[in-house]
């Protein structure tokens, strides 16, 4: 045992000394830290310190009158009974269950179509569907915001041209759907690329075998392609869940155009932002951020467990 582990560390036990297990373990751990140390330092600084600081912040309360004091878990108690926070969480949850399946469905359809080899001008479609992902979210939202305008925007132009009256996409009832439309437009290409690249690595021998067995295209998709890219599907789903819970850019920019439809607590992230930057409530804002982080982790983990279980 000594001979297998010590050469790696570059040490030899003192001759004649009884190589007692505790002493050996201590020497070994020092050497290991030498290698792990630089990584751990960066990891602690970049990943752990901000989280620790947020947790630290969330245990205090700063008031304009009265200053800062330690309040323990009071902020967490407040968040759990805060209707604005739950409304925001409910909204992104709704967004998640409606928008993510639509977006991934379209992305999968496009990826399968591209992969089928029956599409003329494949490269052109691939690049043009991916292109929106290259447009910064801020620009995309501004662009869609102008199109949604009922007076001078595209919607307004359509209304004028056909003498109809389309519902206002920026009204309180429709604004979430309008945001879903923007996000779908932005991310279909990205998810398509994940699926497409997973499809490309499926060995062609499988297709040949299927052909010999007389399987049709539909059978090939359900029996070969989808099982083969399950890992990619799970990954794309998890990314989309995280993206939904972190929804911020689109509502934040559209807020200027539809201030009454998008409240300052429209999504949990927007709520944390408003609390911190206009409300000076850094402590409560940190609390909201931490709760959202935990919720996201739980949901993503559950999805991953389910996805992996199917694979097994």
């Amino acid at each position, binding site marked *: 045992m000594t001979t297998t582990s010590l050469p790696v560390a570059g040490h030899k036990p003192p001759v004649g000394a009884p190589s007692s297990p505790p002493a050996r373990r201590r020497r070994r751990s020092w050497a290991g830290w030498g290698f792990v140390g630089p990584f751990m330092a960066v990891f602690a600084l970049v990943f752990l310190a901000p989280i620790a600081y947020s947790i630290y912040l969330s245990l205090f309360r700063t008031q304009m009158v009265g200053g800062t004091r330690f309040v323990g878990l009071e902020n967490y108690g407040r968040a759990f009974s805060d209707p604005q926070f739950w409304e925001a969480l409910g909204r992104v949850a709704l967004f998640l269950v409606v928008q993510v399946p639509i977006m991934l469905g379209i992305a999968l359809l496009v990826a399968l179509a591209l992969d089928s080899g029956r599409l003329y001008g494949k490269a052109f479609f691939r690049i043009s569907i991916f292109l929106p992902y290259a447009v910064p979210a801020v620009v995309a939202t501004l662009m869609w915001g102008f199109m949604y305008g009922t*007076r*001078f925007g595209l919607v307004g132009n359509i209304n004028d041209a056909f003498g109809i009256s389309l519902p206002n996409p920026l009204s*309180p009832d429709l604004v979430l759907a309008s945001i879903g439309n923007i996000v779908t437009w932005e991310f279909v290409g990205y998810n398509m690329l994940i699926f497409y690249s997973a499809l490309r690595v499926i060995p062609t021998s499988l297709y040949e075998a299927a052909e010999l067995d007389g399987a049709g295209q539909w059978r090939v998709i359900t029996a070969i392609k989808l099982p083969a890219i399950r890992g990619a599907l799970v990954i794309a789903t998890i990314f989309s869940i995280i993206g939904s819970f972190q929804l911020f850019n689109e509502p934040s920019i559209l807020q200027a155009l539809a201030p*009454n439809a998008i409240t300052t607590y429209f999504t949990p992230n927007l709520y944390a932002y408003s609390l911190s930057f*206009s409300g000076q409530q850094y402590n409560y804002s940190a609390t909201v951020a931490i709760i959202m982080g935990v919720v996201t982790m739980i949901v993503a983990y559950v999805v991953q467990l389910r996805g992996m279980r199917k694979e097994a």
Partner: protein
Amino acid sequence: MSPITRRSRRATAAIAATGALALVLTACSSGSGGGSADDAESAVEEGGTITVWAWDPTLESVAADFEEANPGVEVDIVNAGTGNDQYTALQNAIAAGSGVPDVAQIEFYALPQFALSEALTDLSSYGADELDGTFTPGPWDAVTQGDGVWALPTDSGPMALFYNKRVFDEHGIAVPTTWDEYVEAARALHAADPGTYITNDTGDAGFTTSIIWQSGGRPYQVDGTDVTIDFSDEGTQRFATTWQQMLDEDLVAPVTSWSDEWYQGLADGSIASLVIGAWMRGNLETSVESASGDWAVAPMPQWEAGEQVTSENGGSSLAIPAASENQDLAWAFLEYATAGDGIATRVAEGAFPATVAELEADDFTQQEFEYFGGQKVNEVLAESAANVAEGWTYLPFQVYANSIFNDTVGKAYVSGTTLTDGLSAWQDASVTYGKDQGFTVSE
């Protein structure tokens, strides 16, 4: 890179060049408490550098003039954002205790927040309290709180009716002098041309509080940390009832101020008037150039025929943060810009002054504006400045309260909620926040 950043780079290089001597002198002249006017004079003679956070473009020339008149003095104007963005940055700098500017531009509505948290220097010791009477009553009220003078006004926003004369004439509509006439005019205008609205509104905290102010409502009462918030008083209700008609009958364009649609509407006449602060004069001239000759200015519509009551909408001041390390020199610049020769420079560049002397000067009131068809616009605006109703106070957390205005009152613009209910929801949310922040709040 913006010209401003480039400018401050150059200034930084200049400081480095003047070397340690300047730094030592700067250190000597720094003080934590307010100094005296004499201290300021010697600080100017010694020279040094101050940083000014402001987005008012006219201050650039003022700073240049000040530097020229006082060799050895450097004034860095830094645009740290407009309005709320700058307050956030300032709040953060004050909390961190570093990077705090020597002078900061703060709008009247945000001043109580900074004054209350003792983030600003009381300017009384420099003799600012003797400037009572130099400024018009509205702005002076805004910068004095308790027994301190926390800032000096740079500009003011006495309200007036800016209207598109071409559109009004075209439809044969008389310029309204009361709010009842205003509602009538709104109906007539919209009936004559369904694409035209008398004004736009999607819920604007500044506009709402200013009109309530004019209507005699005093929803906010502040005494130190004791705050009263009550939107049920008569003046507030008078505004809510009148404006509710405008919303119910769809007489206001659903366009948000400062948006592209808004500027287009102002240019093509589909938004035919604005009841807004006097600073809109300069904004129309520069941002809605194509409508030159269309617009005119009339006194603010009144709640009772024959009255002459106005209120303020917007307006800024310059303050010295308590953490500034060069307060004496900061005061010298602040005084120059707000009460000294700087005023003339800023007025020449289009600012609307807050000082009585400038507002009453003939060459100011008698100036004819080509954009407004040769009208002596300043005469109307200066008249408004003299008639601002007294006794208005903003909350010590008005910045936050305004940020949640659309969450609450905004509902009245997009759903069946009434303005009265919306204002009451705003009151509740403000009370909750006030209590959270440790104020004693009553309703």
